[in-house]
């Protein structure tokens, strides 16, 4: 008997928990403007395509069919019913290439964003912690980065060291590190003087513990906002370099290189350039709008 009662109680608790969560979720959803919902939907779609690219791609993205070059698909008034978006100048299925490109571009941008965040934040914390000449040196590097545009730096490094995928991702990781470094340094400096860091330090905590367990969670809001705004910048940097033929190298393909190849056929097969371009644009736009919205929602005081 008592067991039964207990079960009933557990059931009730579980149910009420679920109900509670649902209303909470509903509340959140009601607060999200429709525009942001669209952005999230698009990003989610891109994310799914990037993860399950092999399931989505109808053909092998590298397979050439020279007898079917630059075919015009049905949706653009052509007669190719096999290839939904037609083929490129080597007869490769354009949709499959597009899907592969989305995966590459997003993956590279994602890894680059993470590297930048870790690198920049760490350097900022190191500068704030050690002060003195370490601080001076790191801030000098920050200033240096400001006066050398990433694009130029990237071209210099690629010219001297050549290029491969891993190297390229790390190179992208440099883009924008100075923003994180300056921000995290500033926040760590103010946190150090504000009570809790002093208090925790005097408990005998090691600097690593202080920074990872206390200062990091305290500044995470601002870092998350910076992350969402840095991601589109990463996509733009990668696609720009790939567009110039100096980023992602064949046989792999990115949205930038896809666009670059497509521009030669704009008079006849305009979608070969326009579709990858629009994909980049919609993705960066969604991320920018989402980032702005998150910033304004999380903390109205850091709005600038």
């Amino acid at each position, binding site marked *: 008997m008592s067991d039964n009662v207990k079960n009933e109680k557990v059931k009730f608790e579980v149910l009420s928990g679920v109900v509670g969560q649902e209303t909470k979720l509903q509340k959140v959803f009601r607060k999200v403007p429709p525009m942001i919902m669209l952005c999230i939907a698009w990003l989610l779609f891109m994310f799914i395509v990037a993860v399950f690219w092999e399931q989505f791609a109808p053909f092998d993205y590298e397979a050439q069919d020279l007898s079917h070059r630059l075919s015009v698909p049905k949706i653009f008034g052509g007669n190719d019913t096999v290839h939904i978006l037609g083929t490129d100048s080597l007869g490769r299925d354009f949709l499959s290439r597009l899907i592969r490109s989305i995966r590459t571009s997003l993956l590279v941008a994602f890894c680059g964003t993470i590297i930048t965040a870790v690198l920049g934040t760490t350097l900022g914390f190191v500068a704030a912690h050690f002060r003195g000449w370490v601080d001076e040196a790191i801030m000098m590097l920050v200033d240096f980065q400001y006066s050398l545009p990433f694009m130029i730096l990237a071209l210099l490094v690629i010219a001297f060291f050549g290029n491969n995928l891993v190297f390229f991702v790390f190179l992208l990781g440099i883009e924008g590190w100075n923003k994180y470094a300056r921000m995290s340094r500033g926040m760590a400096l103010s946190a150090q003087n504000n*009570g809790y860091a*002093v208090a925790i*330090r*005097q408990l005998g*905590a090691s600097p690593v513990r202080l920074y990872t367990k206390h200062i990091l969670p305290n500044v995470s809001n601002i870092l998350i906002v910076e992350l969402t705004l840095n991601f589109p910048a990463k996509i733009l940097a990668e696609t720009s370099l790939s567009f110039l033929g100096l980023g992602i190298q064949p046989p792999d393909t990115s949205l930038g290189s896809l666009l670059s190849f497509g521009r030669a056929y704009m008079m006849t097969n305009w979608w070969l350039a326009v579709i990858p371009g629009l994909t980049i644009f919609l993705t960066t736009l969604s991320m920018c709008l989402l980032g702005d919205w998150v910033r304004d929602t999380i903390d109205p005081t850091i709005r600038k």
Partner: protein
Amino acid sequence: MREKLVEAKGLYKQYALKSDKLFAKRRYLKAVDGVTFDIYKGEFFGVVGESGCGKSTTAKLILDMEHPTKGTVLFKGRDMSTLKPKEWRAIRLDMQMIFQDPLGALDPYMCVGKQIMEPLEIHNIGDPKDRKQMVLDMLAAVSLKPIFYDRYPHELSGGQRQRIVLARALIVKPQLLVCDEPISALDVSIQAQVVNLFKRIHKELNLTFMFISHDLRIVKHVCDRIIVMYLGRVVEEAESDELFANTLHPYSQALISAVPSLTPDAQAKRIMLHGDPPNPIDLPKGCRFASRCSKCTPRCLESEPELVDMGNGHKVACFLVTGK
């Protein structure tokens, strides 16, 4: 002879000031300017003075949160300035601090239970499984219910926060607890509660307290021995009862006379201090209290008096009293 826990010997602390000019002479703010005292084991030691007199800096020097420009701090006979970073961290088990602003001293993004547990994790005390119980015991010791474990600092009242800070300090069972104006940020109505909690803990755990305050009523209520500081210097040092019964330094007299009293005739004897204390960046020659002292003599403007023991551990730095 009682055992000395802390010996502060001739402490000086100067802060370099930022200058606008490129080649100007560096100027210094003398926050602590030659301070010597001992804290005995188990006593409730008070430090009194106006804001800006170097009380908080002294506390930081005692805990070696900042290094003195000159002078040494001995803790249990050990020179604090010689500690290596690891030893420095380890010695935190013996000395803990309570801050003026309890909200600022707590991490706003961590539940308070975890924060009380933190010293245990840092110093690897106890079995990880037992730690939660230790925290709950500690909460009980500072008269808080176990439900507070999962609360966040902003959900608590000022008094509750200060209890949390106290619990975090006490969980490592320190020998010395330095309290820097621990109640001045609290509502008057709960100040007494927290002070009594301090007193109870002092008695129960046989802790040594260094209690910093500008509020003489509270200091009188809780402290065994008191030093009075003025502009970075100790002007008087005595047992609590002795200090209030037989106040020697004009500054201490002024401070004590300013304490609101219930007896009307005491009110009449109030000594008013005029003017502001001199600028600690460039102090005038002579006694630093001379500019506000009602009994100032020509000699006071010439040289600075030293702290002299008048017997029975009552020390004072005033020519009028010591005659030297």
